[in-house]
């Protein structure tokens, strides 16, 4: 009896915990099923957060390498980055990202179908989804030309027949028209007025304004090429006849934003250079920013732009100084008296250097936007000196010439006790020290700790701002023949940069291009502007002796000349080819429209390839 009792106890001991209904049927703690999403506005907002976050741009604070890919800057970080590319691969800017399109189409349909939220809320969410989709299509069309316009979910029924899913490319202008009509359709439903991080009516207008300007200039300048780039089906190339219509729409969209009075140019700091820097960097009560991608370190969302680009002498972590502006950009900024921006390093007859008392004297009276964009020798960042000095030049009375010394670590002193090499370089080879003599300022976060790996930066990335709207309006007006209106817009921006009122009285396209480069440097415009103006292949022709395709550096030296006190201790400057850049920029005809991958072509036989591409 006792034995039986013991045996039964032991059996119960094991069988007890063994009773559970279906061992393999488990609940997940981290997944949300379909039905839970559409009636919960906070989860729909989560979807929006994901979609906003998925938007990608060529130049941005979390993709700063591309800023060093063109003619405004080069790479001084570790590795060779873009310095050794002999040309741009045809897939450099390829984008064919339909996952986001599908997710948005699915969201639009399921929101309509499953949600029991009020019609107003549904309308507002729908409008916001459609804005993101349109912006995403814009990112496609400017790279690829016309792409298939897909606005509903394409559902495969597993029948083996995929032909109903094969959508051909739309004509290039159809995509631009789609963006315009979508913006017109949603801008009254979208709400969010006052928001700078969710799209509102003016964000829609800003997108429409930019897209229409692009479409107009492609219509005009592509057609003006000796052999316009085009495909038979119009997937690439816009008829010249459409140009004026697009310019008018761009101008009208700009006017709607400007006349609304909701935005104004940022003019809060009397120091004009610092003011221009603050245009992109100040987040609170910034009247100029229309739409930006925001970051907040305290919530774990930050970016490493500042860590990557802080001047070497100011770095707080192991990385620094990746994107370094080049002399080409610096000289694009004119002097405030209207004279050309080329820096004066030699006497007029080129017999000797010009001797400057301070490192920044050579930049005196420059367009204030230079200060706001570039850290140049003799200036500060974060209230700390950024010491940029390549070395010393020692005068030898016997040979009547200078000996240049610059080998050594940044931050070393010369035997005379003065600075030998600045704590921020420049250095010809060392990674993470500028090799051009400049550092980027625009977008750099002056907060202490922002360049450390743990903290990183919380500055936002501006996508649309009023300055661009002015530039767009100026260009559209100029193309439409309204030069006075164009001058009005441009001079307003020049005034903010320190120029006197009405500093320009005549206008050419070249001047507009110059102004646009100055105003919008490192804001993801330079490449796309040159592409739509069909200028890229002309400027960046791959010739190492072409000053527009090759990139240049400015190396400051301290003069040691015991025989001439008027020169001793002063500063002179050498303009040199950027030491780490091996090849001039080379943009080919096949770069105007990026290559469609063979996978995409194989998957859909109705997709035609772009011109100049082997597949």
């Amino acid at each position, binding site marked *: 009896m006792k034995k039986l009792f013991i*045996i039964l106890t032991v059996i119960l001991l094991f069988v007890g915990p063994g009773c559970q209904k279906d061992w393999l049927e488990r609940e997940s703690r981290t997944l949300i099923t379909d039905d839970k999403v559409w009636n919960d506005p906070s989860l729909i907002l989560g979807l929006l957060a994901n979609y906003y976050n998925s938007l990608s741009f060529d130049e941005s604070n979390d993709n700063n390498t591309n800023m060093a890919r063109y003619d405004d800057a080069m790479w001084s970080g*570790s590795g060779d980055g873009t310095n050794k590319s002999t040309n741009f691969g045809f897939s450099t800017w390829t984008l064919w990202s339909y996952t986001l399109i599908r997710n948005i189409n699915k969201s639009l349909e399921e929101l309509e179908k499953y949600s029991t939220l009020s019609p107003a809320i549904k309308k507002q969410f729908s409008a916001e989804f459609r804005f993101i989709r349109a912006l995403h299509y814009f990112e496609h069309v400017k790279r690829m030309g016309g792409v298939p316009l897909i606005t509903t979910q394409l559902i495969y029924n597993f029948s083996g027949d995929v032909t109903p899913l094969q959508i051909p490319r739309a004509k290039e202008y159809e995509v631009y028209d789609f963006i315009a009509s979508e913006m017109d359709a949603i801008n009254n439903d979208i709400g969010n007025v006052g928001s700078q991080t969710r799209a509102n009516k003016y964000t829609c207008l800003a997108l429409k304004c930019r897209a229409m300007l692009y479409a107009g200039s492609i219509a005009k300048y592509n057609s003006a090429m000796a052999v316009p780039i085009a495909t038979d089906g119009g997937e690439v190339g816009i008829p010249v006849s459409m140009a004026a219509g697009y310019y008018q729409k761009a101008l009208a969209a700009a006017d709607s934003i400007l006349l609304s009075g909701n935005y104004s140019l940022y003019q809060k700091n009397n120091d004009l250079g610092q003011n221009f820097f603050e245009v992109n960097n100040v987040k609170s009560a910034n009247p100029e920013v229309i739409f930006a991608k925001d970051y907040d370190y305290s919530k774990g969302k930050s970016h490493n732009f500042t860590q990557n680009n802080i001047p070497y002498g100011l770095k707080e972590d192991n990385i620094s100084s990746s994107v370094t502006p080049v002399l080409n950009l610096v000289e694009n900024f004119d002097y405030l008296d209207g004279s050309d921006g080329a820096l004066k390093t030699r006497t007029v007859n080129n017999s000797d250097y010009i001797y400057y008392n301070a490192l920044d004297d050579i930049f005196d009276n420059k367009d204030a936007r230079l200060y706001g964009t570039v850290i140049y020798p003799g200036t500060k960042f974060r209230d700390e000196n950024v010491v940029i000095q390549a070395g010393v030049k020692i005068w030898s009375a016997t040979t009547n010439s200078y000996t240049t010394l610059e080998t050594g670590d940044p931050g070393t002193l010369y035997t005379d006790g003065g600075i030998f090499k600045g704590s921020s370089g420049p250095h010809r080879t060392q990674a993470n020290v500028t090799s051009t003599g400049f550092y980027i300022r625009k977008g750099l976060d002056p907060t202490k700790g922002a360049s450390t790996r743990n903290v990183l930066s919380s500055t936002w990335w501006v996508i649309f701002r009023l300055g661009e709207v002015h530039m767009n309006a100026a260009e559209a007006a100029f193309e439409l023949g309204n030069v006075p209106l164009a001058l009005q817009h441009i001079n307003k921006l020049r005034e903010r940069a320190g120029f006197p009122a009405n500093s320009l009285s005549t206008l050419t396209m070249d001047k507009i291009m110059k102004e646009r480069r100055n105003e919008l440097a490192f804001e993801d415009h330079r490449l796309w502007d040159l592409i739509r103006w069909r200028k890229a292949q002309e400027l960046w022709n791959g010739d190492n002796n072409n000053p527009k395709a090759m990139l240049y550096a400015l190396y400051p030296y301290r003069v040691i000349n015991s025989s001439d006190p008027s020169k001793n201790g002063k500063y002179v400057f050498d303009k040199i080819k950027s030491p780490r850049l091996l090849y001039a920029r080379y943009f080919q005809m096949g770069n105007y429209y990026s290559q469609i991958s063979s996978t995409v072509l194989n998957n859909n036989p109705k997709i035609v390839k772009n011109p100049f591409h082997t597949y």
Partner: protein
Amino acid sequence: MSKRLNYFSLSRKKSDFSRNMKYAILFFFMSVFGTAGLAFSQTLTVSGTILDPDSQPLIGATVLVHGTTNGTLTNVSGNYTITNVAKNDSLEFSFVGMETQVIPVNGRAKIDVALNLSSKVLDDIIVVGYSTQSKRTISTAISAVQSEELTRTSATNPSAALAGKIQGVTSRAADGRPGSNTNIQIRNMGAPLFVIDGIPVGQGYTTFDNMAIEDIESITVLKDASAAIYGLRASNGVVLVTTKTGTRSDEAKISVNGYYGFQNFTRFPDVVNGQQYVLAKLQSIQNQGGNPNTLYTPDQYQKFVEGTEYGYKSYDYRAAVVRNNIPQTYINANASGGTKRATYYLSVSNVNQSAILKDYSYSRTNVQSNITASLVKGLTIGSKMSLQVADTKMLGVSGSDEYEAPFKSIIDGWPIQSFYANDNPDYVNETHNRAYNPAVYNRDFTGFEDSKFTIANLTLDAEYNFGFGLKAKAMGQYMYQVREMTNFEYKYKTYKYDALNDKYITDPNWGNQNVFLEGLKSFAVARFLSFQLTYNKKLNDHNISAVAAYERSDRDNNELENVSSPPTNYIQKITFGEMNNMYDTWSLEARAGFIGRINYDYRQKYLLEVLARYDGSYIYAPDKRWGLFPAFSAGWRVNQENFFKNSLGNLFSDFKLRFSLGKTGSESGVSAWDYVPKFNYSQGNAILDGVYVTGVSPAGLPITNISWVNNISTNLGVDIGMLKGRLNFQFDAFQRKRTGIPAGRYDILLPSEVGYSLPNENLNSDATVGVEGMVSYKGEVGDFRYSVSANATLSRSKTLETYKPRRSNSWDEYRNSSEGRWNSTAWVYDCIGQFQSVEEIENYKINNDGKANSTMLPGDLKYRDVNGDGIISGFDQVPLGYATGSNPYMSYALNTNLSYKAFSLSIDFSGGTMQTYSIGNQVRVPFYSDGSAVSYMATDVWHQADPYDNTSAWIPGTYPAIRSNDTGHSNYQNSDFWYINVTYIRLKNCELSYSLPKSILSKLGGIQRVRVYVNGSNLFSLDPLRKFKLDPEISASSALVYPQSRMINTGFNITF
């Protein structure tokens, strides 16, 4: 004679004491299990003496009434007394290593026995999964290794100890850092399933590698269809681990084992000194067409040659990082034994290994307790408890891997840069990359990364023996696993020396300016429950055994990681305000299976086995969850046939043919809940109107059409014993064919514009084929005993079919097709020599660098223009190598044991071939990533006699002329100049031991064994990587990895 008696009377007290202690311990355990009542009924008492072949008394030999559990042990004089014996019973006499004898009592009261040495030592019965089986009746490819062979090592974990011991088990010790595992695989099929004491613990090496080697009784490896009994996770074979248990009616046995040893690196490359560094830099500028004067003038170079002035001195980074003769210690104590109704094995061990790098170490403590008790007749319950605590200490160096940083500093640090400013140890120098300055590698300076890994297991089991061959067993386990890690990187200042003013200057931006504190806690709970019935019956000449079982398990994994920046180095506490990031992850697994197996043999001549597992996994959709995995095997012991016995019986003691065929599964290409339509939470995020919003993202199409990969294993084997079992062969040919490897069905070309892709389906197939063999011989000449065993495995996989391959042209097919080809072939340029002169380059017809040879210099590598188009391009790459990261396709080992009287020598060689090592990055390109260079790559090079004179003569070397950090140069492309096919053999282990003879032991009273030894591991290796000073087993192509250590240790084993 009287002297001897005297001695016994002296020692009696001592052994009484120890015996009392042992009884006290036993009593404790027995009372724990509530088994106080012991019943006896006298019938007959038998006593006698048991002697060994040398007529010495055998101490602790077992005497059992045959067929019962009634038994006793011999005492120190070899005497036994057993009560409760019926007149017609038989007595069974046994002792480890001796042949068991069964003698009928026939009413006698005194039986003396002399036991003979057994020819089949211990390996007679092996664990085969859900039961044990006599080796003779096994018809599948199963190998086992016993504890004695495993403990003969300085390895700290069982996988390293297992390497080279069994044919079919391949290994590569790619990383030798303390506490790292050796990547063992069965027949190169991938990570095997580990089953510890009957409980599958998964395909991770962690749990297995944290076991104490001493606690392992045996390891069995299921290599073929026999693994099918583990179903869905058994595709790569199964490793069964059994821990030690006490023996019933054994006297308490206590063992203490330990060693102390010294470690040094096997190999690590030398780096340049200051003068060599500067010269190579100057040559690089010259080679690249620049002016070396812009770097250093000849005067400056001369100062580097002299190397006396601060700023021009040379610093040995390697010596600053690598230490010599670093200790490793090991200690274990265990007690085992039993009574008539209970057994126990208790063990505590600790292994402590300091790394060759300062302030890095590994230490592990293991506790194992295995206890069984009979509650009532037929019912036995047991518990197994184990605790494994592993401590790893490292420095907190910024960078991806804490161990990599010191190695990187050796090759990355510029030898002309001092560790300390002005060599003053109070001021750490601000070097070009401060994370790679050896001066910071100090726990108090840079911080630490410490982790503690704890695994606690509790297993309870109960077994009921019905008495007619049927047994029922239940087993349950609860496993709790915790990993805690703290990574604390301190902030610190660095300095430069201002020689002019004799001052040390610093800058807020130098040094490490911010504190990084990361705390990680992960914990897992695994549960396991099984019920099992076994049945054994012998009916005349027919032997039948059967197993039926049900088991299920689950595992819940949680991990919480916090990252913060505290203000100082002193606060090792994460506060909410200073936190930068927090990660919370969770995952789950659940499995269940029904198991059945029947073994049948006829007079142990014809062997047949049929088994199946009906296995289910949580990972698949409900209607795809369960699968049947059957297997069968058959064997024929030809030597049992009369015709064979009559003709060859004298020559062959064993001749067995085996064949097996079975199916296993593997989970691949799918994750949990993929079959549900869903949204993923926490995918991206955005700050919208200043508020942080967690992103939600629609998942892709639900995956409902995929199932596990099916693996069909086939094995054909032969076992041969000759010369009365002295000479043994085992040979197997095998194939594992996998079908249903997930791949896309791409004849349904969904347009990319649909925005999703079709889920993978079970479409592709491949096969792993190979052969393995083992031969062993053991013999003795007088007192000299020896055994030699060699084994080898050749196993490689090839793709059979891919789903409807489409190739756009014949070159595409040649280059990219995998069908019918061996996997993991390396495609590289065929280097056909080096340019010998400038003239040769000028006259060279083939465009070797794609730039009309404008970048070519004497000494540069010439590649074969395979397609003859006059230009070297990707089209000229040819298959010249094997896989670079996996285990060698062929492995071999040679294990030798020699003993003479009390001395014993073991020598274990192991090696491999058909593996490729790619010399890469830091060891291929001089000054890679702006670092330094290994010396042969910077000194034994083609160069011009005078770096400042471009007209000076070229001087030949082994390696191409230096181009600093020019990774894109044609010289540094993948070619067979850098891809080395490695064939190696290394002396893995060599041990010389001395055991005190019994004559001395018997005077020590109670001490059964004293053995001392000297052991050396990784003493040398023959291989082609010797000239690069690289260990042949590493796989990291940059060589920035902890190589194997050479170790010499001295140790002891004492049993009493």
